[in-house]
């Protein structure tokens, strides 16, 4: 008898009444991230009933429908606000949001910083493909300066967000970055993120060949994976590089590890305190 491993694990978590393969393009990293997320949840032995996947809008938003958890596909950018409500209504649930870069950093940017400030016990998985994929390849706040997109045909003029620094500054408990090439590392940080109380942010760099790569010198999906393989280096090694050397590199790994109690924990502590006071006062 064989141990169930690899994709057979994943097949156990897919919805059998849903059509496969999924809608995403050939070579899209989103599927890899979804597989990684499933392995993380599996490794933590969390029952399916206790997992809530809250997704936003865009290619990443479509992932939720395929997995056999409690899944909520929300409005554009608002996944974190829905997730906050779910977590506060039932803190026992493991709430994980899946958002794209446009979702999390542009239209939902306010929700991201406030979820971090509040330190709500939700894991924010941000799938960064540097572009609005589903709507046809328009610029996102993660599009690199100079890159060509449908809305910046002459090159992106503004700077892109650094998700890690943004989340760190806003107060997230845990911030990490991984890529869809370095899958095992991504799985490790994602598992840590889900396990850790408070607000965790994991940025997964995932290629969009169809909308981004083709217009920006990556001829095939494979070229984008080659780029990630070359560009990504662990954060401690990245920090030793000179500014010039950093230019084409991408730091991956864990950036922030704090141990602040989550918002829900503080709220329910307050409730308990108030109740104790009332009982005391009542006697």
């Amino acid at each position, binding site marked *: 008898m064989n141990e169930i491993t690899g994709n057979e694990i994943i097949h156990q978590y897919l919805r059998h009444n849903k059509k496969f393969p999924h809608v995403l393009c050939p070579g899209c990293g989103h599927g890899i991230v979804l597989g990684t997320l499933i392995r993380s949840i599996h490794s933590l032995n969390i029952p399916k009933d206790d997992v809530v996947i809250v997704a936003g809008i865009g290619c990443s938003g479509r992932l939720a429908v395929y997995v056999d958890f409690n899944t909520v596909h929300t409005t554009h950018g608002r996944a974190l606000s829905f997730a906050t409500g779910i977590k506060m*209504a039932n803190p026992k649930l493991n709430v994980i949001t899946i958002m794209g870069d446009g979702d999390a950093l542009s239209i939902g940017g306010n929700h991201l910083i406030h979820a971090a400030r509040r330190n709500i016990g939700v894991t924010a998985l941000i799938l960064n493909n540097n572009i609005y994929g589903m709507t046809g390849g328009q610029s996102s706040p993660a599009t690199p300066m100079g890159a060509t997109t449908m809305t910046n045909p002459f090159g992106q003029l503004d700077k892109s967000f650094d998700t890690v620094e943004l989340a760190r500054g806003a107060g997230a408990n845990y911030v990490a970055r991984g890529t869809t090439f370095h899958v095992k590392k991504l799985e490790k940080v994602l598992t840590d993120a889900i396990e850790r109380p408070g607000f965790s942010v994991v940025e997964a760099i995932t290629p969009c060949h169809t909308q981004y790569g083709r217009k920006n010198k990556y001829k095939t999906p494979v070229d984008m994976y080659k780029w990630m393989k070359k560009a990504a280096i662990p954060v401690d090694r990245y920090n030793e590089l000179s500014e010039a050397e950093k230019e084409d590199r991408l730091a991956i790994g864990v950036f922030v590890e704090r141990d602040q109690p989550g918002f829900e924990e503080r709220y329910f502590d307050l409730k308990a305190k*108030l109740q104790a006071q009332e009982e005391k006062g009542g006697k």
Partner: protein
Amino acid sequence: MARRKKRKEIFALGNEAVVEGALLAGCSFYGGYPITPSSEIMEIMASKLPQTDDGVFIQMEDEIASMGAIIGASLAGRKVLTATSGPGFSLKQENLGYAVMAETPLVLVNVMRGGLSTGLPTCPGQGDVQQARWGTHGDHPIIVLSASNVQECLDMTITAFNMAEKYRTPVILLLDEITAHTREKIEIPYEGEFEVFSRTIPSMPPEWYKPYEETVRGVPPMPPIGSGYRFHVTGLTHDRNGFPTQRPEEVVELMDRLHRKIDQFFYDIQLVEEIQTEDADTVVIAYGCVARSAELAVQQARANGIKAGLLKLKTLFPYPRRQQEKIMANAKTIIVPELNMGQMSREVKRVNQGRASVRTINRIDGQIITPSEILKVIMQG
């Protein structure tokens, strides 16, 4: 716990009465963003909910997030409330549509203030009526209620929660600055005196549960997230399993059911109060604070020997068409006073179809329409 058989009397603000009503109806989750003149609802919730057994209060970063939070909490099984005013109401429209599509019960109180845009923050208005009906994009059914005094603020909040749960839909309760900011003596009903309806949860094993299946009432049962019924919730047009679909027959089935589950229960949903309408040849149709002015005007007109009456709308949408048709058996003149340029009078005229003479009284200067203004028009006949 011993049952309180006597109603407690309190001297309360309209906004305070909303909170009392919500708690009586079983509300255990408030997510909001403060805005005048609705803020007291949020402030009182902030102090009360943490002191209840399971109450959760959270101040979100904006109105959009507030809607997201309460929809999430409702999906997780809570009875939820948010309150806002004018500009905040505009921001809530996006996720309001989501809640209609995902059939998520919630109560949204909008305390109407004057003017468009930021307008007249501390003055009354009734300019959000058609926005309440059509504010979110796409064809959608919606229940819109209103209250004209502090007691009604409490009663209609309970009604709003019951309708939201019964029909799995958002319910909007429209107040105005005057109603929300008037203090009056109200009676708090005792436990067991009023109906509290909670959403139906599925009674079959999870494998057989289809989240958006057709039912007799058109309202599918709704399990809380985390209770073993795993399903997909989406704002996309979806099939019975909750999965996105663009197949025309499935789209039609869903949209039909969403409308039908509200429309077919008009007799339960459309609430009005008829005051001296039986023999009235002049009927004022009014709602909110203006209905109070109208009531006094009608009394004064009767004292002057005029057969006047008042049809007070407690449900604004779906519009109580049958009730208007009933009073039109006698009414030759219908007067519609409102604090806007004529938003409900459109509905009145649509039903009237030229039969009675419809006269409107409109004010948009942040002042209430006074009884004497209405009386003057009644006397003109």
